[in-house]
């Protein structure tokens, strides 16, 4: 089936983490093979968790078709905020936080100044969601309630075993959106039917997942043209303030 003319991948990863590894040149090769025009990439591994400057430089230097979702571990405090300031100057389009790997509850005080900085910069925040305890998607909902002007994205869509919470989570606040990269098609379809395609973003989760698998998952939903345009590029363009298609 045909897809939208332009595809923006709202969640790719660069760097190395345990057994996952992806360079910018290899991501570009995979994007070209899949017909993906732009990818929003965040750091993996040490670049995400402790050495944020190195991880952020990796995603920020990969452009122009790869845009940086930058991160600073909230436990770095003022040093982390200074890193975000630096990233803004060199073109970051949003913030990525991984409460599981970075070790914080989304609702505790440590990350609050980081949310405030995102609000100041009009940055969306992509949270990794899914694993219990730190990455509970319902904790992200609580943050979204407290910061209603920030747009949030539920990275990985609660995969795997918070799948039964993700639809109601998306529906409970207007500023939380689904990264469809790892959720199965029935779960994605439920969100589209209940809350509209404007709440769903195409993501690949490369290098954990593969573009072909993520795209075919959405193809099987037999989306309308308007739904495809929203999910494959319109929503990402709006939420991340990307340059519109010409």
């Amino acid at each position, binding site marked *: 089936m045909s897809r939208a003319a332009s595809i923006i991948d709202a969640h790719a990863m660069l760097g190395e983490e*345990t*057994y*996952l590894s992806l360079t910018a040149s290899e991501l570009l090769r995979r994007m070209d093979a899949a017909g993906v025009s732009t990818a929003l990439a965040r750091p993996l591994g040490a670049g995400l968790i402790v050495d944020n400057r190195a991880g952020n430089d990796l995603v920020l230097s990969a452009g122009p078709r790869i845009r940086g979702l930058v991160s600073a571990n909230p436990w770095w405090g003022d040093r982390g905020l200074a890193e975000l300031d630096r990233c803004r100057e060199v073109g970051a389009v949003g913030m990525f936080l991984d409460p*599981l790997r970075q070790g914080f509850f989304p609702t505790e005080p440590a990350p609050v100044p980081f949310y405030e900085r995102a609000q100041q910069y009009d940055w969306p925040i992509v949270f990794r969601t*899914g*694993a*219990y305890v730190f990455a509970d998607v319902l904790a992200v909902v609580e943050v979204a309630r407290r910061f209603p002007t920030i747009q949030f994205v539920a990275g*990985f869509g609660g*995969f*795997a*075993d918070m799948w039964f919470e993700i639809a109601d989570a998306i529906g409970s606040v207007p500023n939380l959106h689904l990264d469809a990269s*790892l959720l*199965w*098609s*029935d*779960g994605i379809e439920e969100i589209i039917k209940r809350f509209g395609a404007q709440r769903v973003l195409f993501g690949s*989760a490369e*290098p*954990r*997942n*593969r573009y*072909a*698998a993520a795209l*075919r*998952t959405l193809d*099987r939903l037999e989306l309308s043209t308007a739904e495809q345009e929203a999910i494959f590029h319109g929503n990402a363009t709006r939420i991340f303030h990307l340059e519109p298609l010409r």
Partner: protein
Amino acid sequence: MTRIIDFHTHLDERWLHVKCDSAADMVRTLDRFEVEAACVFTIMGFYEPCPAHNDALLRRADQYPDRLIPFATVDPKQGRAAADELERCLANPRFRGVKFHPWLQAFAASMLRDTMLDVLQIAARHRVPVLLHDGTPPYSTTYQVANLARWSPETTIVLGHAGSADYVDAAAQLMRDIPNLYGCYCGPRAGDLRRLLDLAGPEKILFGSDFGAAGWRLLPERIDNVLEAGLTDQQLELILAGNAARLLKLDERPLAQPLLPHREEAR
């Protein structure tokens, strides 16, 4: 395209308030994606008394004895009755495995060690694999499930999701280190499969989809996860069918052919 055996599906009337596919629906989906056979598990038997659900699963699977392979489920919280129920089920050679879902069945194996050892020994005596949901705390972490393989080295234990979302590296290490521990690749993605292959080898990985618990699209999604991992033909054959055929002893005991033409299940 190599043959495919799906080692992880569910065949039940409903999952809580959601109606599930019938046996006929399931076989139509298997046909559509060229899957020759599927291991089928209960869902409501995780919540309700097992014997009636084992009987119902067998009735459904018996409509397609050449395609659907039932696994029995027992409740180890029932103590001796669980072992007796497993003996009852495995006396029927149609049951070729045992399925547990400790998360939904609400038990920690370590709190029921004696019963679990009895059950694992029964499975070993009948030479059938035991598949358990893994990847979910607090009762189904990959480490908890792998421990069962250490408790009973004679029993073939299968991680139902090969680590699922968060335990893939742990699953790969444990499958490498424990000879009788296997992983059903059901949920993790192509990048994860490469890790499972690198550490545990292709002989320890079995394809599974989990479809039946969700709609038909889960089957092609999970086949995609295998096909997009860049495997060799030999690796594909082992993971998609060969390892399952070996654990299910299909060469030794081929699946029965239906006595009567297939009939549509009343819905």
